Protein backbone atom coordinates (compact mmCIF):
# COMPACT_ATOMS: atom_id res chain seq x y z
CA UNK A 1 0.00 0.00 0.00
CA UNK A 2 2.86 2.35 0.88
CA UNK A 3 4.42 1.46 -2.43
CA UNK A 4 1.12 2.35 -4.12
CA UNK A 5 0.96 5.70 -2.31
CA UNK A 6 4.53 6.47 -3.31
CA UNK A 7 3.78 5.58 -6.93
CA UNK A 8 0.78 7.90 -6.95
CA UNK A 9 2.78 10.73 -5.42
CA UNK A 10 5.51 10.24 -8.03
CA UNK A 11 2.90 10.18 -10.79
CA UNK A 12 1.50 13.46 -9.50
CA UNK A 13 4.97 14.90 -10.08
CA UNK A 14 4.83 13.61 -13.67
CA UNK A 15 7.30 10.78 -13.17
CA UNK A 16 7.29 8.55 -16.27
CA UNK A 17 8.75 5.50 -14.51
CA UNK A 18 5.92 5.63 -11.96
CA UNK A 19 3.42 5.88 -14.79
CA UNK A 20 4.94 2.86 -16.49
CA UNK A 21 4.78 0.84 -13.25
CA UNK A 22 1.13 1.79 -12.78
CA UNK A 23 0.26 0.79 -16.35
CA UNK A 24 2.10 -2.52 -16.05
CA UNK A 25 0.52 -3.29 -12.67
CA UNK A 26 -3.10 -2.49 -13.55
CA UNK A 27 -3.35 -2.94 -17.32
CA UNK A 28 -4.94 -6.43 -17.18
CA UNK A 29 -7.51 -5.32 -14.62
CA UNK A 30 -8.50 -2.29 -16.73
CA UNK A 31 -8.49 -4.22 -20.00
CA UNK A 32 -10.52 -7.14 -18.63
CA UNK A 33 -13.16 -4.82 -17.14
CA UNK A 34 -13.54 -2.84 -20.36
CA UNK A 35 -13.54 -5.99 -22.48
CA UNK A 36 -16.40 -7.43 -20.42
CA UNK A 37 -18.47 -4.32 -21.05
CA UNK A 38 -17.71 -3.50 -24.71
CA UNK A 39 -17.15 -7.13 -25.82
CA UNK A 40 -14.69 -6.19 -28.54
CA UNK A 41 -10.93 -6.70 -28.19
CA UNK A 42 -9.76 -3.88 -30.48
CA UNK A 43 -12.09 -1.34 -28.91
CA UNK A 44 -11.16 -2.56 -25.42
CA UNK A 45 -7.47 -1.98 -26.14
CA UNK A 46 -8.06 1.55 -27.41
CA UNK A 47 -10.25 2.33 -24.41
CA UNK A 48 -7.67 0.90 -21.99
CA UNK A 49 -5.19 3.36 -23.51
CA UNK A 50 -7.72 6.17 -23.00
CA UNK A 51 -8.16 5.15 -19.36
CA UNK A 52 -4.43 5.37 -18.60
CA UNK A 53 -4.10 8.69 -20.42
CA UNK A 54 -6.96 9.98 -18.24
CA UNK A 55 -5.18 8.61 -15.17
CA UNK A 56 -2.01 10.50 -16.16
CA UNK A 57 -3.92 13.72 -16.81
CA UNK A 58 -6.30 13.54 -13.81
CA UNK A 59 -4.08 12.02 -11.12
CA UNK A 60 -3.97 15.39 -9.32
CA UNK A 61 -7.72 15.02 -8.64
CA UNK A 62 -7.19 11.68 -6.86
CA UNK A 63 -7.40 12.55 -3.17
CA UNK A 64 -6.94 9.04 -1.78
CA UNK A 65 -10.44 8.91 -0.22
CA UNK A 66 -11.03 5.60 -2.00
CA UNK A 67 -8.60 2.89 -3.03
CA UNK A 68 -6.62 3.61 -6.19
CA UNK A 69 -8.04 0.43 -7.77
CA UNK A 70 -11.60 1.65 -7.03
CA UNK A 71 -10.81 4.96 -8.74
CA UNK A 72 -9.35 3.07 -11.70
CA UNK A 73 -12.39 0.80 -11.96
CA UNK A 74 -14.62 3.89 -11.98
CA UNK A 75 -12.67 5.49 -14.84
CA UNK A 76 -12.62 2.19 -16.75
CA UNK A 77 -16.36 1.50 -16.41
CA UNK A 78 -17.32 5.10 -17.20
CA UNK A 79 -15.07 5.15 -20.26
CA UNK A 80 -16.49 1.83 -21.50
CA UNK A 81 -20.11 2.88 -20.94
CA UNK A 82 -19.54 6.28 -22.61
CA UNK A 83 -18.11 4.42 -25.60
CA UNK A 84 -21.15 2.14 -25.79
CA UNK A 85 -23.51 5.14 -25.57
CA UNK A 86 -21.76 6.97 -28.39
CA UNK A 87 -21.74 3.77 -30.45
CA UNK A 88 -25.49 3.36 -29.88
CA UNK A 89 -26.12 6.99 -30.88
CA UNK A 90 -24.14 6.53 -34.08
CA UNK A 91 -26.00 3.30 -34.82
CA UNK A 92 -29.38 4.90 -34.16
CA UNK A 93 -28.79 7.71 -36.61
CA UNK A 94 -26.55 5.79 -38.95
CA UNK A 95 -27.15 4.99 -42.54
CA UNK A 96 -26.63 1.25 -42.03
CA UNK A 97 -29.30 1.14 -39.36
CA UNK A 98 -31.81 2.57 -41.81
CA UNK A 99 -30.92 -0.10 -44.33
CA UNK A 100 -30.62 -3.06 -41.98
CA UNK A 101 -33.35 -2.46 -39.40
CA UNK A 102 -32.95 -3.59 -35.79
CA UNK A 103 -35.43 -6.41 -35.37
CA UNK A 104 -32.98 -9.30 -35.69
CA UNK A 105 -30.58 -8.52 -32.88
CA UNK A 106 -31.75 -11.25 -30.49
CA UNK A 107 -31.51 -13.92 -33.14
CA UNK A 108 -28.03 -13.01 -34.35
CA UNK A 109 -25.26 -15.50 -33.63
CA UNK A 110 -23.25 -14.82 -30.45
CA UNK A 111 -19.81 -13.83 -31.71
CA UNK A 112 -17.79 -12.52 -28.77
CA UNK A 113 -15.36 -14.98 -27.23
CA UNK A 114 -13.69 -13.92 -24.00
CA UNK A 115 -10.06 -15.10 -24.03
CA UNK A 116 -10.21 -16.22 -20.39
CA UNK A 117 -12.98 -18.77 -20.95
CA UNK A 118 -11.98 -22.42 -21.24
CA UNK A 119 -12.45 -24.09 -24.61
CA UNK A 120 -15.27 -26.41 -23.45
CA UNK A 121 -17.28 -23.39 -22.23
CA UNK A 122 -16.53 -21.21 -25.28
CA UNK A 123 -19.91 -21.48 -27.05
CA UNK A 124 -21.90 -21.32 -23.83
CA UNK A 125 -20.00 -18.21 -22.68
CA UNK A 126 -20.61 -16.52 -26.04
CA UNK A 127 -24.37 -17.04 -25.53
CA UNK A 128 -24.11 -15.62 -22.02
CA UNK A 129 -22.13 -12.57 -23.22
CA UNK A 130 -24.80 -11.91 -25.84
CA UNK A 131 -27.37 -11.90 -23.04
CA UNK A 132 -25.17 -9.69 -20.83
CA UNK A 133 -25.01 -7.19 -23.67
CA UNK A 134 -28.78 -6.64 -23.41
CA UNK A 135 -28.64 -5.72 -19.70
CA UNK A 136 -29.15 -2.14 -18.54
CA UNK A 137 -25.87 -0.27 -17.90
CA UNK A 138 -25.74 -0.52 -14.10
CA UNK A 139 -26.66 -4.22 -14.07
CA UNK A 140 -24.08 -4.94 -16.78
CA UNK A 141 -21.38 -3.08 -14.83
CA UNK A 142 -22.18 -4.81 -11.54
CA UNK A 143 -22.35 -8.24 -13.22
CA UNK A 144 -19.07 -7.71 -15.10
CA UNK A 145 -17.20 -6.51 -12.02
CA UNK A 146 -18.49 -9.38 -9.91
CA UNK A 147 -18.25 -12.22 -12.41
CA UNK A 148 -15.26 -11.26 -14.57
CA UNK A 149 -13.16 -9.34 -12.07
CA UNK A 150 -14.23 -11.39 -9.06
CA UNK A 151 -15.04 -8.33 -6.94
CA UNK A 152 -17.12 -8.81 -3.82
CA UNK A 153 -20.47 -7.01 -3.56
CA UNK A 154 -18.82 -4.56 -1.15
CA UNK A 155 -16.08 -3.72 -3.67
CA UNK A 156 -18.65 -3.38 -6.46
CA UNK A 157 -20.69 -1.03 -4.25
CA UNK A 158 -17.59 1.16 -3.74
CA UNK A 159 -16.94 1.34 -7.48
CA UNK A 160 -20.58 2.17 -8.23
CA UNK A 161 -20.70 4.52 -5.23
CA UNK A 162 -23.76 2.81 -3.80
CA UNK A 163 -24.76 0.44 -0.98
CA UNK A 164 -24.16 -3.30 -0.76
CA UNK A 165 -27.92 -3.97 -0.73
CA UNK A 166 -28.30 -1.92 -3.92
CA UNK A 167 -25.65 -4.12 -5.56
CA UNK A 168 -27.45 -7.26 -4.33
CA UNK A 169 -30.62 -5.96 -5.91
CA UNK A 170 -28.79 -5.11 -9.16
CA UNK A 171 -27.29 -8.61 -9.32
CA UNK A 172 -30.62 -10.26 -8.62
CA UNK A 173 -32.32 -8.27 -11.40
CA UNK A 174 -29.38 -8.97 -13.72
CA UNK A 175 -29.75 -12.73 -13.10
CA UNK A 176 -33.51 -12.56 -13.71
CA UNK A 177 -32.99 -10.69 -16.98
CA UNK A 178 -30.27 -13.11 -18.07
CA UNK A 179 -32.51 -16.10 -17.35
CA UNK A 180 -35.24 -14.53 -19.46
CA UNK A 181 -32.84 -13.86 -22.35
CA UNK A 182 -31.34 -17.36 -22.16
CA UNK A 183 -34.77 -18.96 -22.04
CA UNK A 184 -35.74 -17.13 -25.22
CA UNK A 185 -32.46 -18.13 -26.86
CA UNK A 186 -32.66 -21.81 -25.94
CA UNK A 187 -36.35 -22.04 -26.84
CA UNK A 188 -35.39 -20.92 -30.34
CA UNK A 189 -32.12 -22.76 -30.71
CA UNK A 190 -32.27 -25.87 -28.54
CA UNK A 191 -31.88 -28.96 -30.67
Amino acid sequence: MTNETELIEQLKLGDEAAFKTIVEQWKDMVYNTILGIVQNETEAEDLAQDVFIKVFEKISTFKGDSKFSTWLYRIATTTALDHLRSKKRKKRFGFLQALGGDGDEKESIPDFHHPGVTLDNKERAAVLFKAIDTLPENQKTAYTLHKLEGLSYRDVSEVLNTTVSAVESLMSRANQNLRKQLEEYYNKNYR
Partner: protein
Amino acid sequence: MTSKDKIQQEIEQTLQCLDGVKRAEANPFLFTRIKARMSRKANIWERTFSFISRPAIAVAIVVLVMAVNGWALWGGSGSNENLTADNANVSEFANEYNVVASVDNYDYENMPNE
Protein backbone atom coordinates in the same frame (compact mmCIF):
# COMPACT_ATOMS: atom_id res chain seq x y z
CA MET B 1 -36.36 -35.48 -18.73
CA THR B 2 -38.65 -33.10 -20.64
CA SER B 3 -37.31 -30.56 -23.08
CA LYS B 4 -38.33 -27.81 -20.64
CA ASP B 5 -36.14 -29.39 -17.95
CA LYS B 6 -33.30 -29.70 -20.44
CA ILE B 7 -33.61 -26.02 -21.32
CA GLN B 8 -33.57 -25.12 -17.62
CA GLN B 9 -30.44 -27.23 -17.22
CA GLU B 10 -28.81 -25.45 -20.18
CA ILE B 11 -29.66 -22.06 -18.63
CA GLU B 12 -28.15 -23.03 -15.28
CA GLN B 13 -24.98 -24.32 -16.92
CA THR B 14 -24.69 -21.19 -19.06
CA LEU B 15 -25.12 -18.91 -16.05
CA GLN B 16 -22.32 -20.78 -14.29
CA CYS B 17 -19.92 -20.90 -17.21
CA LEU B 18 -18.12 -17.71 -16.16
CA ASP B 19 -17.26 -19.12 -12.72
CA GLY B 20 -13.49 -19.32 -12.53
CA VAL B 21 -12.96 -17.45 -15.79
CA LYS B 22 -9.40 -16.19 -16.24
CA ARG B 23 -8.67 -12.50 -16.53
CA ALA B 24 -8.08 -11.37 -20.13
CA GLU B 25 -4.55 -10.09 -20.61
CA ALA B 26 -3.85 -6.70 -22.13
CA ASN B 27 -1.39 -6.16 -24.95
CA PRO B 28 2.18 -6.43 -23.55
CA PHE B 29 3.08 -3.27 -25.49
CA LEU B 30 0.22 -1.23 -24.03
CA PHE B 31 2.55 1.26 -22.33
CA THR B 32 4.50 1.88 -25.56
CA ARG B 33 1.23 2.53 -27.39
CA ILE B 34 0.02 4.88 -24.67
CA LYS B 35 3.30 6.84 -24.86
CA ALA B 36 3.02 7.05 -28.65
CA ARG B 37 -0.56 8.34 -28.38
CA MET B 38 0.40 10.89 -25.73
CA SER B 39 3.26 12.24 -27.81
CA ARG B 40 1.00 12.40 -30.89
CA LYS B 41 -1.52 14.35 -28.85
CA ALA B 42 1.19 16.72 -27.60
CA ASN B 43 2.47 17.10 -31.17
CA ILE B 44 -0.94 18.22 -32.42
CA TRP B 45 -1.00 21.08 -29.87
CA GLU B 46 2.62 21.95 -30.55
CA ARG B 47 1.94 22.08 -34.29
CA THR B 48 -1.21 24.16 -33.76
CA PHE B 49 0.61 26.71 -31.60
CA SER B 50 3.64 26.89 -33.87
CA PHE B 51 1.32 27.41 -36.86
CA ILE B 52 -0.60 30.22 -35.15
CA SER B 53 2.58 31.91 -33.93
CA ARG B 54 4.11 32.17 -37.44
CA PRO B 55 4.46 35.93 -38.22
CA ALA B 56 2.48 35.72 -41.46
CA ILE B 57 -0.40 33.80 -39.82
CA ALA B 58 -0.40 36.05 -36.74
CA VAL B 59 -0.51 39.22 -38.91
CA ALA B 60 -3.26 37.70 -41.06
CA ILE B 61 -5.33 36.91 -37.95
CA VAL B 62 -4.90 40.49 -36.61
CA VAL B 63 -5.90 41.97 -40.00
CA LEU B 64 -8.92 39.65 -40.14
CA VAL B 65 -10.05 40.67 -36.64
CA MET B 66 -9.65 44.38 -37.53
CA ALA B 67 -11.58 43.86 -40.77
CA VAL B 68 -14.42 42.13 -38.90
CA ASN B 69 -14.50 45.00 -36.38
CA GLY B 70 -14.54 47.62 -39.16
CA TRP B 71 -17.32 45.78 -40.96
CA ALA B 72 -19.31 45.57 -37.73
CA LEU B 73 -18.98 49.35 -37.18
CA TRP B 74 -19.91 50.35 -40.75
CA GLY B 75 -22.54 47.67 -41.05
CA GLY B 76 -23.95 48.81 -37.68
CA SER B 77 -24.62 52.41 -38.83
CA GLY B 78 -26.37 51.07 -41.96
CA SER B 79 -28.59 48.82 -39.90
CA ASN B 80 -29.47 51.74 -37.56
CA GLU B 81 -31.05 53.54 -40.47
CA ASN B 82 -33.11 50.47 -41.26
CA LEU B 83 -34.05 50.16 -37.60
CA THR B 84 -35.36 53.77 -37.52
CA ALA B 85 -37.45 53.13 -40.61
CA ASP B 86 -38.80 49.92 -39.04
CA ASN B 87 -39.68 51.73 -35.81
CA ALA B 88 -41.58 54.37 -37.79
CA ASN B 89 -43.59 51.64 -39.51
CA VAL B 90 -44.38 49.94 -36.20
CA SER B 91 -45.57 53.25 -34.63
CA GLU B 92 -47.73 54.00 -37.65
CA PHE B 93 -49.28 50.51 -37.43
CA ALA B 94 -49.85 50.84 -33.67
CA ASN B 95 -51.56 54.22 -34.05
CA GLU B 96 -53.73 53.00 -36.86
CA TYR B 97 -55.03 49.95 -34.94
CA ASN B 98 -54.95 51.49 -31.46
CA VAL B 99 -52.54 48.83 -30.13
CA VAL B 100 -51.06 51.27 -27.57
CA ALA B 101 -54.22 51.22 -25.45
CA SER B 102 -54.02 47.46 -24.90
CA VAL B 103 -50.31 47.65 -24.05
CA ASP B 104 -51.15 50.24 -21.33
CA ASN B 105 -52.98 47.50 -19.42
CA TYR B 106 -49.56 46.06 -18.47
CA ASP B 107 -48.13 49.39 -17.38
CA TYR B 108 -48.68 48.75 -13.67
CA GLU B 109 -46.96 51.94 -12.49
CA ASN B 110 -49.43 54.14 -14.39
CA MET B 111 -52.63 52.19 -13.79
CA PRO B 112 -55.71 54.46 -13.72
CA ASN B 113 -57.42 54.60 -10.30
CA GLU B 114 -60.62 52.56 -10.26
